[in-house]
């Protein structure tokens, strides 16, 4: 296979991390909640999954079960984080920005504490092969696409379908656009906000787990999760709040991240040490450019949900 195709597949695989993260964030934003806790949630998703694998990774359970248990446990840990966030911002109507940042502080810290206690030879070495099913063991670049990559694609597409093609999606978007209206027609605003925030968090958490156990599959991988969380939030703007578009956006991000390692491998480009930080800067600079471009071109349908960031209280006068 040629080198460029390898590059594309690697970008896709890397990008799945962001795909999970921003699909999750889109869901919560569509319910009117700007969740800046996504980095913490992704970290905890990673930690939750690894914690489970640390228990079952070396056991004699069938690989299939180990894979499922890891995914479920990762989603559960992230959902718990989402529950904290929902309780604070929905029920207690706390400021979303601050709550999100606090959640990130908490999540990143807790992940580090947990990960420092886990045994990589148990949670990582054996399970990572299971997660690469069906391509595990292949010599070509397809080997980096595993179950979780495809799961991510399905989730992103399904989220788009639900949001824009079903009645549940219609209700959800109404909640994010104008909760008073949604409330007045009998939609349970609180329930929608809770459920979407929790489900969105669960999905985002899988992104963290995917990166640690599958894409990177190294014991230091978790240290860069926080940055990916922030990028996932930024990607939402690129995707214009449509989950299926995160697939393209995240592939571009993946591409930009792979650049620094990839270019080093190209024989015809001489990479100096000083160039490396500049290359690593690319995804962030790209995000800034996207932000600017999207703010210059304004279209009504491409705006953030109208009540984003605002707490809802029915009797507000």
């Amino acid at each position, binding site marked *: 296979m040629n080198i460029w195709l390898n590059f594309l597949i690697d970008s896709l695989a890397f990008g799945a991390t962001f795909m999970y993260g921003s699909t999750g964030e889109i869901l919560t934003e569509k319910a009117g909640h700007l969740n*800046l806790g996504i980095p*913490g949630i992704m970290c905890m998703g990673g930690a939750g999954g690894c914690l489970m694998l640390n228990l079952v990774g070396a056991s004699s359970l069938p690989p299939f079960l180990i894979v499922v248990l890891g995914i479920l446990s990762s989603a559960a840990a992230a959902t718990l984080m989402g529950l*904290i966030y929902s*309780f*604070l911002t929905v*029920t*207690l*109507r*706390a*400021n979303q*920005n*601050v*709550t999100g*940042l*606090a*959640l*990130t*502080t*908490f*999540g*990143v*810290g*807790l*992940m*580090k*504490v947990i990960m*420092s*206690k886990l045994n990589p030879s148990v949670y990582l070495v054996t399970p990572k092969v299971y997660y690469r099913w069906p391509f595990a063991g292949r010599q070509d670049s397809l080997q980096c696409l595993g179950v979780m990559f495809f799961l991510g694609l399905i989730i992103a597409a399904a989220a788009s379908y639900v949001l824009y093609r079903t009645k549940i999606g219609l209700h959800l978007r109404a909640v994010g656009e104008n909760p008073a209206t949604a409330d007045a027609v009998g939609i349970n605003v609180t329930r929608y906000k809770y459920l979407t925030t929790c489900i969105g968090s669960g999905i985002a958490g899988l992104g963290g787990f995917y990166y640690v156990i599958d894409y990177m599959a190294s014991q230091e991988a978790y240290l860069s999760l926080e*940055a990916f969380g*922030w990028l996932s*939030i*930024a990607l939402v*703007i690129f995707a214009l709040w449509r989950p299926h578009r995160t697939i393209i956006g995240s592939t571009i991000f993946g591409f930009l991240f792979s650049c620094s390692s990839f270019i080093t491998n190209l024989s015809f480009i001489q990479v100096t*040490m*000083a160039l*490396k*930080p*500049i290359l*690593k*800067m690319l995804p*962030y*600079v790209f*995000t*800034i450019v996207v*932000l*600017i471009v999207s*703010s*210059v071109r304004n279209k009504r349908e491409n705006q953030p949900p109208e009540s984003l960031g605002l707490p809802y*209280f029915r*009797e*507000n*006068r």
Partner: protein
Amino acid sequence: MTANHTPQVREPLVHLSRRTEFSPLRAWGVRLAALVLGLIVCGLAAFLLIEKLQQNPGRIGDFYYAFIKGSFGTSRKLWKMLKNLSILLCIALALTPAFRMRFWNTGAEGQTLMGVLGAIAVDFYFGGKWPEALLIPVMLLAAIIFGGVWGLIPALFKARFNTNETLFTLMMNYVATFVVSYFLVIWVPSGSSSLAKLKYGKLPSVVNDYFLIILIALLLTIGLYIYLNYSKHGYEISVVGESVRTAQYVGISVPKVILRTMLLSGMLCGLTGFLIGSGLDQTITTESVGGQGFTAIMVAWMGNFNPLMMILTSGLIQILNQGAAQISQDFNVSGALPDVIVGIMLFFVIGCEFFINYQLHFRRAQSKEAVR
């Protein structure tokens, strides 16, 4: 309860209403209660995370002992706490003008780091060549300019295109990180990317190494309090923050205020960067600011964007931080424990505002009677 019979009148279990007034004293009571509750939960969380505690539950007292020891154990620790408080306070202060303008500057981390870079770059190139009396002011100037420019860039786009500043400033943090690592590669040819402590350009020691920093933070607090509440600029910031349309209506140039305020915000971050670079480290890493730029956001918010209140909130965070650091040292757990502890405490502090702003009415048992 069958459906066909007259349904029993039931109010919702809990019913909410917004408080119209609440005495400040009771508000502080609620906050104090949240603090105590938070400390208890922090203790429980630590209990779960620290194996030694689980093996010997009697040590739960040790936990709180270590906690207090962390900040107040020795006079050196106390000074260190005050120094940390001051640095965090300075960044929070830097953020405050922007926040009052509802410009969600999440880029204090990067702006401060650029400040450190400015100071250290001058120190690196001119240290030893220039007298200290010239070198240090130039370091200060460079730090302020670097920080200011880093704050100004997102403001330019906000003022011109209304570009989302939260994410822009956030990304600028990471760009700053890689700018620093770029310079580290250039400055440290060995490839280790760790710059040895520079010999020159150290902020003079008054009383001790920390006193001057604490003093500057204090002066900055008072200065900013006056600027925000009693100056025309401060007034314009409040008007723009409350309503851009009102500002336009009375002829305030909104872009000008945004640019000016973000320049100030960035410059103050730069100043803090100078305090870190020249006053403390005399070197730079990508972790020189160590996440305080984010913590400062919460300090400023919890302090209600009031510089005087922020002394208390940054104190709270640093006491927690240092206490938790002491615990992680005494009980040999990950150095990330302080983040967990601070995070838990923040949940309580953030959540308690609800009980100040809203009133809960529980279902009364004899609601029928109340109807008469």
